[in-house]
């Protein structure tokens, strides 16, 4: 993996040397230099903090709502019938349409939260729905015969079934939340966010900065994702009671 990254960095370096125009393709070294000078400014950390908070909040809200709504859908067929077309609609609508609509509906400060929430919700919903439906029917029958209570059933039967589905849908939703969240910031331009910096880098043709911000988004998305996945894995392990049902 490390060797592959090194190879592509070399390709990038060679390509930028061949082109010879930083405005068109800055070299990796120029991007690193830009990043180094950016991190020394307070506004960098402010933008990172703002975007992280807003996009992260949107993800977490989408996660919570997706799990909750899918649980209700599995439990009550009427909720399932009502939510199915709604989730399909949210999933199929282009993110740009939502961004424009959201600019009308909500304050641009919360735009990335709203967009991130909308992108995450249907993905988590369908993952949770499939996971809960995948619960072992024979174990559920056993639980019914033995009168196993709701929470014990959740922890011993539903949660282990849900875990792989929820983790894979989270991984998918994490990437989507960052991509759509930053896109929303670029269009809505809330003050002091990564999206605003990215937009400014574009209009002032500061290509090394543009590349550096892109690198920052990739790193943030990766780190945030790792944190969430590890947190979920730990929570699932503790909750599923591997060792004790209570």
């Amino acid at each position, binding site marked *: 993996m490390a060797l592959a990254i090194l190879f592509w960095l070399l390709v990038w370096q060679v390509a930028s040397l061949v082109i010879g125009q930083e405005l068109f393709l800055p070299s990796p070294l120029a991007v690193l230099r830009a990043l180094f000078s950016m991190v020394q400014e307070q506004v960098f950390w402010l933008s990172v903090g703002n975007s992280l908070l807003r996009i992260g909040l949107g993800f977490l809200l989408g996660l919570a709502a997706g799990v909750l709504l899918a649980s209700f859908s599995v439990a009550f067929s009427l909720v399932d019938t009502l939510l199915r077309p709604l989730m399909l609609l949210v999933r199929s609508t282009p993110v740009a349409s939502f961004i424009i609509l959201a600019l009308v509906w909500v304050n641009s400060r919360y735009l990335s939260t709203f967009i991130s929430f909308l992108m995450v919700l249907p993905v988590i919903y369908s993952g949770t729905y499939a996971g809960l439906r995948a619960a072992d029917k*024979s174990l559920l029958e*056993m639980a019914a015969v*033995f009168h196993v209570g709701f929470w014990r059933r959740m922890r011993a039967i539903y949660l282990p079934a849900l875990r792989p589905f929820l983790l894979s849908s989270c991984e998918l939703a994490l990437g989507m939340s960052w991509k759509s969240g930053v896109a929303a910031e670029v269009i809505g331009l809330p003050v002091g966010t990564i999206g605003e910096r990215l937009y400014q880098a574009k209009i002032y043709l500061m290509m090394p900065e543009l590349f550096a911000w892109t690198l920052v988004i990739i790193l943030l998305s990766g780190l945030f994702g790792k944190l969430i996945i590890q947190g979920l894995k730990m929570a699932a392990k503790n909750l599923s009671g591997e060792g*004790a049902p*209570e």
Partner: protein
Amino acid sequence: MRDIVLNEVTKAYGEQTVLREFTARFKAGEVSALLGPSGAGKTTIARLVLGLERPDAGTISGADVRCSCVFQEDRLCPGLTAEANVQLVLPHAQWPRVAEALRELGFTKEDAQKQAQYLSGGQKRRVALVRAVEAQGELLVLDEAFKGLDEENREKAVEYVKRGRGGRTLLLITHDPREAETFGAKSMYVPPGEKVWGGGEETRGEVDNNSERSSS
């Protein structure tokens, strides 16, 4: 505690009638055994008695009590330990008894703490037995509960069930007539797909209609 009475119960899965007008009485507090070849409908009878299926015709009475069961399959939660699988069906106050029960059936402390997915077939069977015997209830159903156990463990398990049953009604489903004899069970042969009238002459006309689970 009341007798469990099945009165002319018929059950079909799709086109296939598994049970046709089956009538039987399982006496309260006693051991009844259902014998017969595979596919005769013995497990269907157990599922009807446990309330997991509804009859297409006929009535079942006296079965609306708390039950415990060893299914044909082990039905253990793979991620839970042997001990936790039993604890899952018990109130907290009964948990200390679980380790002792598992030890009686040959489990070491380490084995009791192994996740069910890492237990051998015989160990899984014994965990399912402990779970059924330790659980509270008035009716205990054992569906081929001793299959896959070696002679020594089988004897231990039979003794454990005899001791642990208390005054519960026990419905034993087995291929093996010797197993029914060991428990001193009143046996009934279930031939495949035919009308069966078991449990003695007194069965007819004594169905308790106050708490019946019927096809309607």
